[in-house]
């Protein structure tokens, strides 16, 4: 059990907007024990993004514990958390979040630069990563000249440049067409397998869910496992988050 990647216990997050309190994540428990493609599904506003952000050290829970590599992300001091974001987590955003004034290669380098190290060695690493995501010819292009799929590949290369142990992706295919989405999903799935990487993906996309090694469902701030025996989330006791989008198995 000491090999656990993540151990979340009673993680809660409440947003305060004016006088209203929104309990986005309600006492979530989750354990991830090793590499694989973990998919979190659920309705819009169910708290998927909130949970993922807390797992990636972008946000902190109001209560509960997020144990990662012996640290509690909920109470870790800012400097250490920054270091974890830099070295242990790779984050992929729905909107790609590339720096618009930097080329593809430079965007990847933006994540590598704070770690220091030799620049020629770094450059080789970046070239190899861009090759790995299939963008060698686009290294010098600015994000504005890349397609959405290409931009997301750059973002994935950037997330991988410090050789993290976890890759967190919030709807990485949300802004892509279905064919491009499939390419990104297979890339993520391949990476998780090749690099022994724990990939946690929040998605509405049933195609992604199909590639998952583990599926979770978020419902009104609560998290539940979707057993592989059933393609339907509804079977675990609450309405299926995929109900409105069709059943891939149907």
């Amino acid at each position, binding site marked *: 059990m000491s090999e656990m990647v993540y151990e979340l216990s009673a993680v809660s997050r409440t947003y305060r907007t004016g006088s209203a309190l929104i309990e986005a994540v309600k006492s979530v428990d989750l354990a991830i024990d090793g590499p694989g493609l973990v998919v979190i599904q659920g309705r819009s506003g169910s708290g998927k993004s909130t949970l993922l*952000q807390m797992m990636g*050290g972008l946000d902190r829970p109001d209560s509960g514990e997020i144990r990662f590599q012996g640290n509690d992300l909920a109470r870790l001091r800012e400097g250490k958390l920054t270091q974890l974001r830099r070295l242990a987590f790779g984050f992929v955003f729905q909107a790609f979040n590339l720096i618009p*004034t930097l080329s593809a290669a430079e965007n990847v380098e933006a994540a590598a630069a704070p770690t220091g190290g030799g620049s020629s060695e770094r450059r080789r690493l970046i070239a190899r990563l861009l090759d790995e995501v299939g963008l060698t010819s686009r290294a010098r292009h600015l994000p504005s000249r890349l397609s959405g799929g290409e931009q997301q590949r750059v973002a994935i290369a950037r997330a991988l440049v410090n050789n993290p142990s976890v890759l967190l992706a919030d709807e990485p295919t949300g802004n892509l067409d279905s064919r491009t989405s499939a390419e990104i999903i297979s890339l993520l799935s391949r990476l998780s397998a090749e690099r022994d990487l724990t990939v946690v993906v929040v998605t509405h996309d049933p195609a992604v869910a199909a590639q998952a090694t583990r599926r979770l469902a978020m419902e009104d701030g609560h998290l539940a496992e979707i057993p592989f025996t059933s393609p339907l989330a509804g079977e675990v006791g609450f309405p299926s988050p995929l109900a409105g989008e069709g059943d891939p198995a149907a």
Partner: protein
Amino acid sequence: MFFIAYLVHELSRRRARTLTALACIAIATGLVISVTAIGDGVNATQSKVLTPLSAIGADLIVTREADPNNPHGSTEVLQQNAEAVKTDLAQLGKPGDHFTRDFFLPGTQLTMPTATAQQIAGEAGATASSAALAMTITHQEGTVPKIVATFQTGGQTINIDQAIAPMTQAEINATNACIAALNGSPLAPPPGSPPGKTGTAPPTPDQINTCLPERFRRFRATIVTPQQTITQVLNPPQTDIKSNSLSVLGIDTVNTPGPLSVAQISSGRFFSADPGAAAKEAVLSEAYATHHQLTLGSSVAYNGQSFSVVGTARSVIGVQSADVFLSLPALQKLASQDGNANVIFIRLRQGSDLDAAIHRIEAAYPGFRVTSNRDLANRISGSVAQAGSLAQKGSRLLALIVFVVTVLFVSILSWAGVHSRTRELGTLRAIGWSRLLLVRQVLSESLALSLLGAVFGSALGLVAARALQAWLPPLTASLATASTDSGQFGLGNLAPAIGSTATLRIEVIPNTDLVLAAMALAIAAGVIAGVIGTLLTARVQPIQAVQRLT
């Protein structure tokens, strides 16, 4: 280096924002430079004008006044001086010959032996001093006049009234005999003698006269004074002589301070260091050289003594200038003023009491007048007198306002820049950039911008200053010369070729200090703007990578 590349890309690829900030900083820097340079230029021009002696490195000038009420023999000195002017016109040549002649007039500035000058300098506690001889040369040229007139004297009748010795008996006898011979009655007939013959005509008085002794005959003659021709020298001679005046200063070419400093030389050079060579050289005022079309290498001659022109000089308003500068020994010789001078230039020890020095001289040497910068400044009027420190203060204030506005403007730009990049900066935090790293990046962008702005701005400022230099109207300075002060040192009656009003170009040449200061201000503005942006940057959270901008 990634961070530098990021900085360069950030500035070069967000062109509009960069150019706006750059233009703002550059214009501000240029404004600060040119405005301050104008203010400083006006002020420098003023203080130069108001401290004319400083321009020649002197603190005091001592002259000797011609004051008839002064019991200390100034009239005698005046007479002595006047001796130098006396000219024997007969020496000019034969009447009708062409001649040129230079008369040397010391004016109302009385001469004194150079030894006295040294004593006065000693009394004042001078660290350096020199004596100069200011004279007016009256140059005359024309035909040697007929300088004599002829008078006729004599021809008057002179009456003589004199008691003549009475006749002796012998003379009476002789006379009687003579008259008798003429058949006249004797003057006094001898007693008892018979009456003379009657019927014959008596002798005429002329006939009787011939009988008188010689002595009586001569005195009855009319005396006429001899006629004589007298030639007399006419004063003044009536001639066709053309006369013009120029001022000349004989200066100490070795010691400073003096009325002509090396800094005033506008072309050519100062006198030779060797006194022998200097005695054959002349420096001309720019105006005189231009007016008489004299150039370097030309020569000027006075009473046959020739001097080669080695330089031309600018005049300093308030300091006695001259059309021609010669070496003191040369002028002394020309003007027959051996060993004499009439102006003393004194430099005091740094920080010594000016008033005390003036007082000591005036107490020890009555009849001498001491002039300081203060006296001269009080007599200077014109636009320059009002402009100076006000312009400098005004320009400083304007520069400050420009700076404050610039800081505000670039701070707003910086803040807006960071604000619009919140997602980008949040993303960098999300992928592992520390707060410090992010702040460093944003701050260096501001610094780089302000540094670039400072460089462009300095160039802009220098160009603007040059343009303004040409465009600004010149300042005027007038030196008041009261009639009672005719002999006071300054632009008085001894400098006929130099007007007492000067127009002065404002020097708008920004110095290195000013440019550096303006650049420092620009960088300071960048730092302040950077810090404002940084305050916002430091608050950027990783979560903002995924939040919509509010």
